[in-house]
């Protein structure tokens, strides 16, 4: 990335650096080389012949520059204090001159607090923050170069936006044109650099003073963490970061108080409770509901009160996978429901619709015509127009604006008040049937997993079973998956709030490796064992994230589900060829990642991580996992490259 160009003159910004360079050159001139391939020393006759040039003469004879060359305060120091007042633990960065003032202040004034996490791409830095927030329950910061760095960061910010995850992004800028140096400082400056991300951030600002920064930083944090959550952006003027504080006594760090998430209207909650209690076959569908450890417990309480089916879209860790009422792999329940309660849904229409991707695209409701639909959530309280992540319109019967997690206790209490002994007996019977169906589904999953058990490439079922066998007794947290890989949720026992944290949100490829790493960073201080699965295609968008993991010693077991393809696209191409009545045997062109095959273990080792693989024989998988897990327990990242069947 271009940085501020080096000026040849001894200007204020370059004076000390230039002096340092002069000293280093002189030392090198008299120090003999110590290695055969070292640069030769300057010959002695050249040193004798050297005469001062006109620039040196001028520099030595002109009176000293009256401009100040040192300062005792900096705006960056105050900015650091503000960030620390918000409890921000980490700032993921790819270093850049437009925020060098803040960077230096964090390192020296803040004693590296927030801790700088060095990333080799802005996409990695933002995705790390996204993954971190979903485990830790609060944002971390990300800093980037004002224009080009922010352009790199955009897709990851879009993922965070679609996923409704708070991330505090700051980008440097030089607002005053007469302060910009020639070259890079012009192409890296903008009138309104936040414009590029405004369609997918909740709020942004470009503070013009330090007090303005303080208030905007606290406001940004508050906006980001208020449901529906989302990324925010601040443009930081370089002069504001770097220059002395003119009026330190007048500066004040605003008081941050988190917003209490809104509960649904009591009358509407009571109406919903009545509908659910009177229903013969109520079904709860849920997506991004749990935002604290209390969320899952709240949903379990409601489901057990009603003894009703829960279908979890797994946008968060909403419901235990082995709970008898978990019917997530029995979607046909939606077609049998008379009342559906949809909580914090990302794609309500998609969840309740059968859609066909054929020449004539068709859709039909997955529910009965007389089914009553209740929605509870805050997603639609903040929408934007351009990007269509809000999804298709869905008719509903009762639409409650309220945070799902915060509203569930009141809904449960309202339902409990309406349930008499007669209903309790009916509900118990309903619960027994659901429990039996759940158990049958688990057994069916195990049976299905046996097919191709010893095959090579390795089946995804075996891959997941082998991994679980080795981590099941750890305090594990699985924070990433590949497209369509659901074996963990079919086979594993998810029951703790941090054992899952959802997916990318915007389906932007490149999320999985760095976001998993961010989640691992959050898990590290809690002593949890972090692992993730990820596709090979996703891996190659951001392999440099592994260097960050090695550099900062972030322990994570990362399993590459290596089907050597952008496999979903492969299937789409096969479908296109079949539709057009043409050959389907060349659809690997442009969709596969082979010839040569990528050796992900070697890539990992090149980044300083432990690498295992490629594993093609299922018998080799368990020993490779054992070695990798040992490396993770030693404190670093480990990659296991598993050559798998496509799905």
């Amino acid at each position, binding site marked *: 990335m271009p940085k501020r160009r080096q000026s040849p003159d001894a200007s204020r910004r370059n004076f000390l650096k230039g002096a340092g360079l002069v000293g280093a050159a002189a030392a090198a001139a008299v120090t003999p080389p110590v290695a055969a391939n070292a640069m030769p020393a300057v010959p002695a006759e050249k040193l004798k012949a050297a005469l001062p040039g006109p620039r040196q003469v001028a520099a030595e004879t002109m009176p000293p520059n009256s401009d100040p060359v040192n300062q005792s305060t900096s705006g960056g120091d105050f900015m650091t204090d503000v960030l620390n007042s918000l409890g921000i633990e980490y700032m993921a960065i790819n270093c850049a001159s437009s925020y060098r003032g803040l960077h230096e202040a964090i390192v020296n004034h803040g004693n590296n607090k927030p801790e700088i996490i060095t990333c080799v791409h802005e996409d990695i830095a933002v995705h790390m923050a996204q993954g971190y927030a979903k485990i830790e329950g609060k944002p971390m910061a990300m800093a980037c170069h004002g224009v080009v760095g922010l352009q790199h960061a955009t897709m990851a910010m879009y993922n965070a936006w679609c996923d409704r995850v708070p991330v505090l992004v700051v980008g440097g800028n030089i607002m005053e044109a007469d302060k910009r140096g020639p070259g890079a400082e012009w192409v890296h400056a903008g009138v309104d650099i936040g414009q590029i991300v405004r369609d997918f951030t909740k709020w942004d600002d470009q503070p013009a003073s330090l007090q303005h920064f303080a208030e905007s930083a606290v406001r940004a944090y508050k906006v980001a963490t208020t449901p529906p959550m989302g990324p925010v952006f601040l443009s930081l003027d370089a002069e504001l970061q770097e220059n002395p504080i003119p009026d330190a006594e007048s500066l004040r760090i605003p008081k941050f108080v988190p917003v209490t998430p809104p509960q649904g209207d009591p009358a509407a909650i009571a109406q919903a409770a009545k509908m659910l209690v009177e229903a013969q076959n109520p079904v709860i569908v849920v997506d991004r509901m749990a935002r604290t450890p209390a969320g899952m417990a709240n949903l379990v309480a409601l489901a057990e009160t009603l003894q009703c089916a829960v*279908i*979890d*879209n*797994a*946008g968060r860790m909403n419901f235990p996978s082995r709970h008898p009422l978990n019917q*997530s*792999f*029995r*979607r*046909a329940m939606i077609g049998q429901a008379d009342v559906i309660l949809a909580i914090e849904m990302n*794609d309500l229409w*998609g969840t309740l619709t059968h859609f*066909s*991707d054929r020449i004539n695209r068709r859709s039909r409701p997955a529910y009965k015509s007389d089914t009553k639909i209740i929605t509870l959530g805050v997603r639609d309280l903040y929408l934007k127009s351009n990007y269509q992540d809000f999804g298709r319109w869905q008719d509903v019967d009762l639409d409650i604006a309220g945070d799902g997690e915060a509203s569930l206790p009141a809904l449960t209490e309202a339902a409990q008040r309406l349930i008499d002994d007669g209903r309790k007996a009916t509900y118990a019977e309903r619960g027994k049937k659901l429990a039996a169906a759940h158990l049958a*589904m688990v*057994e*069916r999953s*195990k*049976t*299905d*997993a*046996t*097919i*191709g*058990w010893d*095959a090579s*490439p390795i*089946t995804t*079922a075996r891959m997941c*079973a*082998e991994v*679980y*066998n080795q981590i*099941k007794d750890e305090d594990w947290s699985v924070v990433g*998956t590949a*497209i*369509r*890989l*659901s074996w963990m*949720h*079919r*086979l594993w*026992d998810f029951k703790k709030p941090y054992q899952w944290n959802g*997916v990318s949100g915007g389906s932007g490829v490149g999320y999985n490796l760095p976001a998993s790493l961010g989640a691992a960073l959050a898990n590290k201080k809690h002593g949890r064992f972090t692992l993730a699965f990820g596709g090979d295609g996703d891996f190659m968008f951001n392999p440099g994230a592994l260097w960050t993991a090695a550099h900062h010693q972030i322990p994570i077991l990362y399993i590459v589900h290596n089907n050597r393809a952008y*496999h979903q696209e*492969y*299937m789409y191409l*096969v*479908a296109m*060829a*079949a*539709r057009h*009545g*043409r*050959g*389907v*045997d060349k659809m690997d062109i442009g969709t596969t990642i082979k010839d040569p095959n990528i050796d992900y273990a070697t890539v990992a080792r090149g980044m300083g991580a432990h690498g295992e693989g490629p594993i093609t024989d299922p018998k080799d998988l368990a020993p490779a996992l054992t070695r990798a897990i040992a490396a993770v327990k030693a404190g670093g990242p480990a990659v296991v490259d598993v050559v798998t*069947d*496509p*799905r």
Partner: protein
Amino acid sequence: MTTFKRIAVTAFAVAALGAASLAAAQDAPQGNAANGKRIFLADGCFTCHGRSGQGGAYNGPAPILAHTALPFDGFKGQLRNPADDMPAYSDAVLSEKDIADIYAFVQTLPGPSSPKDIAILNN
């Protein structure tokens, strides 16, 4: 997350296949399993259904094909005019013989076994 939605329906599709008559499978035309394997791997069948016929996912569930109990006519009907998002394979892409060969191949694939025999599936 649509993954679960799509995978979940698989179970119902598989159940439907399992209910089909094994006797009907015996009425299938004689196919060349070796050639069927070649087509299965070359023409994209494996991309959704897996090399072992273990099933998978496309837009929706891709049912288990290993040792399928689906009658040949039903198998061919699904290839020619699928009920869901599965690509429709016309005669220009897969001949009647190709389909018979694929059908013969998937009949050779071992179906599920008892998970009780695999210790790590019982965690």
